[in-house]
């Protein structure tokens, strides 16, 4: 017996849970750990930007309009055509992009998991109705849906950024619901579910205690892949001009503005998109690592 046989002060043998096993495998995966580090750095810089003593994101320097990167003066990414520091704007834009990713993923996690697990466990007609609702929502073109929302809901009623959180969140749980339902259907027939049923455990507890913990593996992996997808979607909507509004920025708006000025100021598109690409890559590496760690059979 190795470290698994460690004995706690009360003389009880410590168990080695499947999660602990997965954590060990994940930490052995270099690419995944590197991705996690990059992600942590980007997140800390973005949300710590107000405390780093940098310029304000709407600080205009009339001497530096569309200036290339200048390390001496601290303009690491150069400036845009309004003379604002692109490094600072990229960090603040990261706040919006990462928040969208996080919020939408959390929404999809909570709604999608509960919806999918309930449909899969209850089965029969309820399952049919619940999953057809998902199909119907799925068939609505997403961009169309967002445009409708922005037109229908007045600007002074809800901030455009909030609206985007709402819209992306409302759509992103559909995939999750399908994945969780599929998992649930396969778990539902297992004997430990029947044992719980035979022990008088209620449906709610069977779902929360037995089904959801057992389909969390694919869910966690899918979550890490949802975040980059959502960030891309946000960038796309903002690129179309329907998401984040000036003077706020997101990676999408920065890239959109950068593209317009690409011929005179290439740094305005290279740097923000570079940061975004690195972040998305890191997220994908983490997702890959998690998949390998949680499901060692598939390697």
């Amino acid at each position, binding site marked *: 017996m190795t470290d*698994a046989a460690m*004995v*706690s002060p009360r*003389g*009880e*043998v*410590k*168990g*080695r*849970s*499947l*999660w602990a096993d997965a954590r060990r495998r994940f930490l052995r995966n270099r690419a995944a750990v590197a991705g996690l580090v990059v992600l942590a750095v980007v997140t800390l810089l973005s949300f710590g930007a107000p405390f780093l003593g940098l310029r304000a994101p709407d600080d205009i320097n009339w001497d530096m309009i569309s200036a290339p990167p200048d390390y001496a003066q601290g303009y690491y990414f150069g400036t845009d055509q309004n003379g604002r520091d692109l490094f600072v704007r990229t960090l603040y834009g990261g706040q919006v992009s990462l928040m969208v990713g996080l919020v939408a993923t959390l929404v999809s996690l909570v709604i999608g998991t509960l919806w999918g697990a309930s449909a899969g466990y209850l089965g029969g007609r309820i399952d049919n109705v619940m999953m057809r609702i998902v199909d119907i929502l799925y068939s609505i073109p997403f961009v169309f849906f967002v445009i409708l929302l922005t037109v229908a809901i007045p600007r002074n009623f809800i901030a455009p950024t909030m609206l985007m959180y709402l819209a992306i969140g409302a759509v992103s749980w559909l995939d999750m619901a399908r994945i969780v339902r599929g998992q649930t259907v396969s778990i539902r027939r*297992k*004997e*430990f579910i*029947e*044992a*719980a*049923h*035979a*022990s*008088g*455990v*209620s449906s709610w*507890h069977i779902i929360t*205690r*037995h089904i959801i*913990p*057992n389909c969390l593996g694919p869910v966690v992996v899918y979550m890490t892949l949802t975040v980059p997808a959502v960030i891309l979607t946000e960038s796309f909507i903002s690129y179309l001009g329907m998401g984040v509004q000036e003077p706020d920025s997101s990676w999408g708006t920065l890239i959109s503005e950068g593209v317009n000025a690409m011929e005179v100021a290439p740094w305005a598109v290279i740097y923000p998109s570079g940061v975004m690409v690195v972040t998305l890559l890191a997220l994908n590496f983490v997702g890959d690592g998690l998949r390998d760690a949680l499901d060692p059979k598939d390697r």
Partner: protein
Amino acid sequence: MTAPLLSVNDLKVHFEIGRRGLFGGARHVLKAVDGVSFDLRPGETLGLVGESGCGKSTLGRAILRLLPLQSGRTVWLGRDLARLAPREMREMRREMQIIFQDPLASLNPRMTAGEIIAEPLVTFRPELKRAEVKQRVQAMMAKVGLLPNQINRYPHEFSGGQCQRIGIARAIINEPRLIVCDEPVSALDVSIQAQIINLLMDLQAEMGLSLIFISHNLAVVRHISHRVMVLYLGKVMEIADRDSLYANPLHPYTQALNSAVPVPDPDIERAKPRVVLKGDLPSPLNPPSGCPFRTRCPRATQVCAECMPALERAGADHMVACHHAAMPDRP
């Protein structure tokens, strides 16, 4: 004779097979259990034997109402379980439990042994303090032969026999009166099988449990059962007390099953008469008319194809459903 703990009367479990999607499609009815009746006395073990697919497990699950019944009654101490509201039924589940064939699959891989064993307890007695639950779980672990200090281990860290002990601890923690054992030993090593069987018998003696013991291993059933029921395609062929059934099987199917049990002595094994059945189990979707066993029965005649023989008394505690049952010599 004491009043039966459980009285099953003409129990039927039918499954609809085939697409029932948007566009319909052919529907077939699979009669997994078709008109089974028996009584179970307190403290008794009823062995349930038969080939794969004859409805043993379905019957066990139907008794516990884990499956919907087509018709029939299961009367538990005078109360018809089928009439109970879901809430009342959940309350009744404290009294009846189940042990499964695959010990590992019957334990949630994300829960520790302690959490698994405690689940029925905290479900029915949510008022218990955490320390008390833990103390009871550890006592239960000791009772089924597990080390109480392994309470925080996960199922994959136990062997198959240990997992089955966890399943047994979970089943008995609420001190039920009936446990359905669905092939509890067929996935285990022979040496472990004996341990588990003896554990079940000890617990039965100690707690006055009734057991419904499902198995296709006749030797094991003989060891543990007081009475044995033989099923074939969802119908009862023969039900008798153990000694009578093994010494004097009346139904040709029971005789064939019995003769297939190997004897651990090559001389006897070679010399003993063998009843070899022709063919395979017919499809339960399209069972033969009359007696379901007639297609493979050495004694089948015209009457067997025409009607199903009724289950008739053939001895003190011996019922058989055969038109041509070899009647025993009556004293």
